[in-house]
């Protein structure tokens, strides 16, 4: 069981660094269209911030509630990914052919943009959940882990 870190410096810095890291993660996720970034890297940075929260504040602390809650969303990100692809299938094209994404009021370029954005958000959330679950399962002692 991970105990809360007992150094005031670490905890205070954690309160500052973790939100900044999450903001940076979201930035990297959105910026992937125009430069290095994208879903996977954004997800890894988000996972790193959540793992840092668990390491500094312990698993059951109120400050790391997000990391504990996020495990319930296992598989949700991939469902978003498959869902976007499936919507394209239903719309008449192939899997992930964003031209056929039938959302009213969008022209073709915006359809590609929205489709890619949604898939990247799905990938990022799934990678974040996976990272946190790896960290939690590695640190568990003998009790069963989450929905085991």
């Amino acid at each position: 069981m991970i105990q809360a870190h007992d150094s005031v410096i670490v905890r205070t810095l954690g309160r500052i660094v973790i939100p900044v890291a999450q903001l940076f993660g979201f930035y990297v996720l959105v910026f992937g269209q125009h430069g290095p970034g994208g879903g996977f890297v954004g997800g890894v940075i988000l996972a790193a911030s959540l793992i840092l929260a668990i390491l500094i504040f312990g698993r059951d602390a109120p400050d790391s509630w997000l990391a504990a809650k996020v495990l319930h969303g296992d598989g949700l990100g991939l469902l978003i990914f498959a869902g976007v692809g499936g919507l394209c299938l239903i719309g008449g094209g192939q899997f992930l052919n964003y031209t056929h994404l039938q959302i009213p009021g969008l022209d073709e370029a915006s359809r590609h943009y929205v489709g890619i954005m949604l898939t990247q958000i799905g990938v990022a959330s799934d990678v974040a959940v996976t990272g946190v679950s790896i960290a939690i399962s590695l640190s568990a002692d003998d009790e069963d882990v989450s929905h085991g």
Partner: protein
Amino acid sequence: MSSQLPILLFLVPFVTAVAMPILCAKRRSWCQPLTTGAVSVMVVLSIINLRVVLSEGPIEYAFGGWGAPLGIAWLDDPLAAVMALAMTAVALLSLIYGRVVVPSNLDRSVPYYTLILLFTAALIGIVFAADLFNVFVFLEVAALTGYALVGAGGGKALVYAFRYLLLGSFGATLYLLGVSYLYAAVGTLNMVDLAARLPELMTSTAVVTGLVFVFLGLSIKMALIPLHGWLPGAYANAPQSVAPLLASTITKVSLVVWVRIEFSIIAPGVEVSHIPVLVLLEDIGALVAVIGGALALVQTNIKRMFAYGGIGHIGLILIGVSLGNSTALTGGLFYLINDAVMQATLFMVAGAVLHYHGAHSLDDLKGVSSRSPWLTGALVVVAVSMVGLPPTGGFFGKWNIVLGALEAQHYLAVFAVLVSTLLTLGYFLRLFSCWFHQPATIESEQLEVAVPLRVSLGLASVAMIVLGFMSDSIVRVLFDSLTSGGS
């Protein structure tokens, strides 16, 4: 709608697997029926897919609307359709069987069933992929879920799963290295495009290095001796319910990937610094067939014996596909499909014997025959098919390979097939002598074997005989697929 069949075949297990943690977190008893239902839907879809492909021709599926060679394409030709049907059918049989022998801690575990579904989805991806890198991705997904499934056995299985992981990941890295070399030399990764551009580049060092690394990587995945070290330990210690699934699929699909690469690129007579490549592969196959059979003969653990038998058969199939004429090629591929069913049945029998009689090694098998007629019947059918006697499918596969070897006048291959058959006969006779041995003291009471087990074993035995009867039409389908330029 029928043109979307390949992706539907992939999406059914994938979406079920991904939705399972959310759906079944509270209702754990739903996992098993959901998994079996998803795989049954897959079997139905693959039958429909086979009929569509046979009547209308290959389906080329371009992801995102970007056609080959710019985008990633999936090619659904008859070979892929037959393989998809074989893999999904074997998976369904293993799942029905798995209900009986699954360990209690795994039966209510959501990740276990998620892993099985992801493994099946990855197999479909490997079979359909027409892009070298796409094959790598799905090969790794199948491998990673495989490592976790082997390790789910707990205890000893963890150590062997780790060894499997090290060797398997190293093999995948070699494959990736080979693909990088090929990309650097040719500039494209689409298999059809490579087939057009590669033959005139065969003298380039980069291309040859790439192909060598790809072959090495795939050899580790298909457990070609001497790179087979991970297989016996992993299959002998995997949980009983997934051993048939793992044993019958992962080495065979890796071999199919190599056949696709080899068939489209290496024509007969191609030489690399004066070494004829196909003859080299055929000699490797001959060695593997003989050594695999010999190693199987000396084992005392039942599952290890079957594992080495499977390794030997990979050698036989490699002989068949490397002989360079279409008889042997179709014979080899037909034998591959048979081998998938045979390995699944063998591991089902071994798991059932362990579950009901507690028999690990050959000596523990005394008196099993009188108490389990179903297991005995299935074992006899599988033995007939493995040795290669008519009317089972194993006979027609070996027969076509031998005919092709005689046609190409490679008598070493004929000799290797014969020796391997004799060795298979040898270890099955050893198995039977222990199986049918009647101890004088124990009276024989019939052991009630559960219904799902009977269903699985019965369907598998029937399948082997049906494959034998239908061998002509299947061989013709494979022949058409390969000569119409669709690979």
